[in-house]
C-alpha cells in the first residue's frame, strides 16, 4: 500500500512538473508524458537522468530499481585486489530525485505488457508508460554449466560479476585461502559483459597474492581461443610482473563443476581443482527482457533499432546496455551503457516531443583495466551511426590501446569513475 501511494505521488509530481515549461522543445512535448525506466545501472540511471535533462524537465520519469544503492561493476575488481573498499564503489540514487525530479522506486518488475503499455511491480501495482526504457543488464545462465546452480546458491562458487554482496564474499574467500592455494577464474565464450574484466580480475588477485600470499597461483581458464581484450598488454604485464603467479589456458570451456572436490570439468582437457573457484557462466539479456519476448537474437540478446535503441520486437520499448545485441566491435561495458542511455533518452525525448530523431548519433567507449593497484591499460573506440547500414560502425583510424601499463592512466581511470558516476547519478 505504501508503495502504491508513493507511485501515485510520484506520478502526480511528474504531472505537476510537466505543467510550466513547454518552450525549449517548441511546445510539442505532451503535457503528461510518462517515461518508465527499468534498471538503475549505468544504462538505466543515465537514461532516467537524461530524459529529464534533455526534455528541460518536462517529461516525467519513474525509475524502478530493486537495489537501494548503485554498486559499480567497473572498479569492483579493485575491491578483490584489496586497494579499494565497497564503500568507495557504492553510490546513492538520491540526487536523481532531489536534483533531477526522477521518481525512484525500489522494487522488481514482474511483467511488462507491451500491448497495454504497462509494467507490473512485485507488489501487484501497475504503472502505465508512454515510453519504456529497459536496461536490465545480463543474467547469468547458471544452468549452462552442470552443477553450478546449486554450488552458486550455496555460496561455494561465486560469480561476483554483478558487483555487490558477492564481491565482498569473493574477497573473503581470497583472504581465507591459505598461501600456496589456487584461485581459478573461468571465462565464457564472447560475447559476455565486460570483455577485459576477467583479465583485470586475474591481475588484481595476482597483485594481492604477490603482496600477501606469494606462493599462491591464479589460473585463467578461458573458453575463447585467446584473451578477449587487450591481449598483448595483459600478457606483457603478466610476464613482467606475475610470471610465477598467473597461468593462462585458452580453449577451456567449462562443462560442469564438482562441488565436492571443488573442481571444474572440461570437454577434452583434464579436470582442474582449485581452492577458490570463480565461475563466469554464459550470459544473456536480463530475465524481464527474455520473458517479454524482446531477446530476438538467438533467444539471448535484444535486437534494437540502433538509431533510437527501440526494440525490434515491441513499439515504445527502448532497450539498452548489456542486454542488447551489440553492433560490431561494441563492447558490453558500463561506459557504453551510459552512452546508450543518452542516445535512447534523446530519441525518446524527440519522439515524445514530435521532433526529428538524431540522424547521426554516436557512441564513445573507454575501458580502463587496472593491472596492479596503480597501473592501468585502456582500450578506446568511437562508433558513428551509419544510416545506410542502420548500425554503428567504428571510425577507421580512431580508437586504440595504451602503449603500456602506466600510472598516469591509473589516476585518469579513478577520475573517470568519479566523473561517470556523477554523469550517471548526480
Amino acid at each position, binding site marked *: 500500500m505504501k508503495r502504491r501511494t508513493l507511485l501515485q505521488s510520484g506520478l502526480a*509530481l511528474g504531472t*505537476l*512538473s510537466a*505543467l*510550466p*515549461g513547454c*518552450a*525549449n*522543445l*517548441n*511546445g510539442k512535448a505532451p503535457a503528461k508524458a510518462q517515461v518508465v525506466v527499468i534498471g538503475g545501472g549505468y544504462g538505466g540511471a543515465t537514461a532516467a537522468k*537524461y530524459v529529464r*535533462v*534533455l526534455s*528541460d*524537465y518536462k517529461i516525467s520519469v519513474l525509475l524502478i530499481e530493486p537495489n537501494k544503492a548503485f554498486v559499480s561493476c567497473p572498479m569492483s575488481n579493485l575491491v578483490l585486489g584489496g586497494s579499494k573498499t565497497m564503500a568507495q564503489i557504492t553510490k546513492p540514487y538520491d540526487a536523481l530525485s532531489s*536534483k533531477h*525530479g526522477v521518481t525512484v522506486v525500489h522494487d522488481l518488475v514482474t511483467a511488462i505488457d507491451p500491448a497495454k503499455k504497462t509494467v507490473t511491480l512485485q507488489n501487484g501495482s501497475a504503472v502505465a508508460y508512454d515510453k519504456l526504457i529497459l536496461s536490465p543488464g545480463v543474467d547469468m545462465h547458471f544452468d549452462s554449466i552442470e552443477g553450478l546452480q546449486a554450488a552458486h546458491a550455496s555460496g561455494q562458487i561465486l560469480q561476483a560479476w554483478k558487483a555487490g554482496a558477492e564481491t565482498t564474499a569473493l574477497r573473503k574467500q581470497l583472504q581465507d585461502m591459505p598461501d600456496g592455494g589456487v584461485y581459478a577464474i573461468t571465462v565464457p565464450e564472447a560475447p559476455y559483459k565486460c570483455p577485459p574484466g576477467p583479465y583485470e580480475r586475474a591481475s588484481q588477485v595476482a597483485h594481492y597474492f604477490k603482496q600477501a600470499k606469494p606462493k599462491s597461483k591464479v589460473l585463467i581458464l578461458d573458453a575463447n581461443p585467446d584473451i578477449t581484450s587487450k591481449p598483448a598488454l595483459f600478457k606483457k604485464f603478466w610476464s613482467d610482473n606475475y610470471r610465477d603467479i598467473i597461468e593462462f589456458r585458452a580453449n577451456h570451456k567449462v562443462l560442469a563443476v564438482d562441488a565436492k572436490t571443488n573442481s571444474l570439468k572440461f570437454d577434452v582437457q583434464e579436470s582442474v581443482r582449485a581452492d577458490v573457484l570463480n565461475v563466469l557462466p554464459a550470459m544473456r539479456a536480463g530475465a524481464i527482457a527474455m520473458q517479454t519476448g524482446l531477446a530476438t537474437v538467438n533467444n539471448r540478446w535484444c535486437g534494437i533499432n540502433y538509431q533510437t535503441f527501440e526494440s525490434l520486437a515491441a513499439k515504445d520499448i527502448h532497450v539498452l546496455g548489456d542486454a542488447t545485441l551489440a553492433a560490431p566491435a561494441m563492447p558490453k561495458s558500463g*561506459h557504453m551503457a551510459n*552512452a546508450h542511455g*543518452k542516445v535512447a*533518452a*534523446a530519441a525518446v*525525448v*524527440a519522439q515524445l*516531443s*514530435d*521532433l*526529428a530523431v*538524431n*540522424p*547521426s*548519433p*554516436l*557512441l*564513445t567507449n*573507454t575501458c580502463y583495466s587496472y593491472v596492479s593497484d596503480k597501473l592501468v591499460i*585502456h582500450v*578506446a573506440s*568511437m*562508433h*558513428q551511426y551509419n544510416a545506410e547500414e542502420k548500425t554503428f560502425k*567504428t*571510425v577507421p*583510424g*580512431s*580508437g*586504440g590501446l*595504451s602503449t603500456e601499463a602506466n600510472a*598516469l*592512466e591509473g*589516476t*585518469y581511470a579513478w*577520475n*573517470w569513475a568519479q*566523473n*561517470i558516476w*556523477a*554523469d550517471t547519478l*548526480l
Partner: protein
Amino acid sequence: MNLLFLQSLERPAMRIQNFTLQLASALLLTSMPVMAQDAASALHQRANAANCTNCHGSEGRTVPGSTVPAIAGLPRDYLVAQMKAFKDGSRPATVMHQISKGLSDQQIASMADYFAAQKR
C-alpha cells in the same frame, strides 16, 4: 505567472528562461516549423556532446579535484584547436588522440560550441 512560479519545484532560473522562450514562441507562431528544426538540432547537439561527459563531467563540469579536465565554459576556438592538436599528434595524450580521430570537424565544432556556452 506567479502561480506557475510557485509551482516550480526546482530550477527557478530555467523556468524563467522557459518563460521567456514561451513568450517568444507565442509571438512567433508563424515560424513554428523553423523553431521545431532548431529545437531538434539543439537536442541532437546536446545529446552528441554528452559523449564527452562520461569523462569530462555532465555539461563539461567535472567532480571537484578531477585530474580529467573540465571543459565547460572554455573558449570555443581553444576547444577546437585542442581537438585538432590531439588529432594531428601535436598535443600528446593518453586517450584523446584516439577519441578525436573518431570525430568529424563538424562534430568537433558543434561540441565546442556547446561546451563553450556552458557555465564553468
